[in-house]
């Protein structure tokens, strides 16, 4: 049951990163692919009305963490107190930008929120990338004192680490580039005209940069957590996830070369799913790895709530999940196809 909840948690995170990932990426690219008001309206319209549905996967992840692994939540959230507030405030600004932008048909109003949207999207991609880096690297957990992390210590990855070091900065940059590439693929699928042409050019470069950074981060991970790679060989699920990532990579390359936008986009989704899946499968059961001594780590086993609570949650969760997908299908079917450039319609979607 604990392993199942670990899988559910990872599934929710994967949904969030893949879905909101393209919104973040499109946000980063907002000023790079769209040069005037009409083009920027097209980018916003391409995101469609479902961005908040994408973001709910983050809220859902928080809920699952709360009910299934309260000890993990209680250890990690206060430890990253100020960093988390930075995430919350940035999320707040980004949500306001997307919702408020189109209520006033005024160029100053819209450029203000466009800048907020682009800036907060980039900041969040970096922050979530650093968060993944922290989970991979671990944190200085001791059994008797409450965990707190300074922003940085000596930028090393062992012992008394801070939030930022050379490894977590690399993952942050990787996340920014990878999600931006993902956003570019999404925009090539949904837009037309100049925005489409620029997105297409950006997508090729960004995916190349993603592959280079991915190899760099992989090499770095072998030096930060060598035991993850030796453990991975014995786990069939990690192999499956690697296969998904590999096929995603192939699809991106062939899609870019053949000009098949949908294939590139789906390849990007598969790559992100595969990478997160590989990470999850090799980390299990450790959820918060201690950089001081492995036996202090908080695992799925000692961090989960009582089995009765897990059983009860397992009873309702599948229904909620199916409903959630159902709404997405219902709304999504009205929003298929490309957004056309129309100057007469001032409605965003």
């Amino acid at each position: 049951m604990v392993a199942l909840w670990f899988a559910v948690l990872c599934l929710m995170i994967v949904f969030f990163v893949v879905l909101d990932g393209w919104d973040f990426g499109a946000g980063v690219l907002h000023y790079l692919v769209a040069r005037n008001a009409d083009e920027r309206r097209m980018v916003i319209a391409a995101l469609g009305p479902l961005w908040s549905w994408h973001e709910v996967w983050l809220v859902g992840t928080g809920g699952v963490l709360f009910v299934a692994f309260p000890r993990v939540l209680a250890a990690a959230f206060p430890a990253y107190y100020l960093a988390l507030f930075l995430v919350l405030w940035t999320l707040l600004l980004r949500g306001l930008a997307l919702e408020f932008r189109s209520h006033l048909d005024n160029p100053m109003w819209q450029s203000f929120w466009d800048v907020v949207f682009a800036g907060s999207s980039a900041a969040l991609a970096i922050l979530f990338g650093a968060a993944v880096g922290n989970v991979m690297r671990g944190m200085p957990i001791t059994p008797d004192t409450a965990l707190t992390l300074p922003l940085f210590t000596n930028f090393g990855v062992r012992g008394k680490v801070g939030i930022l070091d050379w490894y977590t900065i690399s993952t942050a940059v990787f996340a920014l580039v990878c999600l931006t590439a993902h956003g570019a693929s999404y925009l090539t699928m949904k837009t037309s005209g100049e925005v489409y042409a620029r997105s297409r050019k950006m997508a090729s470069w960004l995916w190349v940069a993603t592959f280079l950074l991915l190899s760099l981060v992989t090499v770095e991970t072998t030096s930060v957590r060598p035991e993850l790679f030796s453990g991975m060989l014995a786990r069939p699920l990690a192999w499956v996830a690697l296969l998904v990532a590999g096929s995603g990579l192939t699809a991106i390359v062939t899609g870019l070369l053949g000009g098949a936008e949908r294939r590139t986009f789906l390849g990007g989704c598969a790559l992100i799913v595969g990478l997160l899946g590989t990470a999850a499968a090799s980390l299990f059961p450790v959820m918060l790895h201690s950089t001081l001594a492995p036996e202090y780590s908080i695992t799925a086993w000692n961090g989960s709530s009582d089995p009765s609570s897990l059983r009860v949650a397992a009873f309702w969760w599948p229904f909620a999940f199916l409903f959630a997908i159902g709404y997405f299908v219902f709304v999504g079917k009205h929003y298929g196809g490309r957004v056309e450039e129309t100057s007469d319609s001032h409605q965003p979607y």
Partner: protein
Amino acid sequence: MGIAWFLVGWKWLHLRTGDPRYADAARLWARIFGINFAVGVVTGIPMEFQFGTNWAAFSQYAGGVIGQTLAMEGMFAFFLESAFIGVLVWGEKRLGPKSHFAAAVGVAMGSWISGFFILVTNAFMQNPSGYAIAADGSLRIASLSGFLLNPWALVQFCHNQAAALVTGSFAIAAVGAFYVLRSGTSPRGSLFLKWGTAVGLAASLVVAFPTGDQQAKMVARHQPPALAAMEGRFESGPMADITLIGQPDVRNRQLNNPIRLPGMLSFLAFGTFHRNVPGLGAFPQDTWPTNIELLYYAFHVMAGLGTIFIGLMALANLQRFRGKLESTSPLLWALMLAFPFPFIANTAGWMTTELGRQPWLVYGLFRTAEGYSKSVGSGEAIFTLVGFAGLYFLLGLLYLFMVGREVMHGAGEAAW
């Protein structure tokens, strides 16, 4: 939560009758609803994460139980609301009338389901039920139905949702009164006045009776020190008075210049005048609510405003049935200026329930003083609190500007 069902009602009438006035009304209020919703979403996301950041000890203690409803809220309600809110506000052309009506229903259902799960969470903290203590001392769930169907939650849900309808009705009536006062006659204004006052009276009555009455009985039964503090009652005894006016003086354990109705508290709380209602003196001081004065005033502000709401709405409906509402200018002014007061009453009501629960985080089980995140320093907590205060103040200004703009926009447009 209040406006959501007005939207559903108007969309439905439009579908049934084809009358464009209803579609127009729904369109205006959907835009205002969208602004409300955006502010609600962005300020709501931090709240969920603050359980972890600021109340880590409490989260670890109660996560297995209250995590259920918080996760359910995310999974059942937020996905529903978030999928449909965008298309409700912007997607009328894309969706067509039937699907757009479905979107309105989805958003309304989502917001009420969300309210239910949050109130179950709060009700557990007020009156824990359906739980057991796990081996490590934390709480675990023993009965999902016992937890979800907590009697406190059902009463609190009805009370709170009726209050939400009051808030929505007052806002709609206020905009209607503004349009009529501004232009003399305004078909849009008449429609809003009609709906706002009709639903407003019904909801105001339900807030007081039976839901408010039941809520008070619940407090009397399960949190007797809170009831004593709400009424500024220090001595015990039968034929307990209800206080209309007075100031509690906690140091000297008395109520200054009280105006009381004799016996009414015994009657309202327990259904008989002869029932003993214990005063604060009957309880050990470490179970007293920590801020008795604030609790007392919050409760009286809520109850007083609730009574005034019934009076105002009754008068408005009386004039409406006589066909004189739109020519009774003082009443229109009162309706127009009344819209902030339900917000004040709601806030005072939440202060009553939360201050009344003190000093407990989970009533009788876990004290507030034990629940905070031990590793977060007071400086960090103050910094983030000030940050939120500043951000939310700016957000409040922005909100007023945008809603005001929509209302003015609606007033300026030619009729229908």
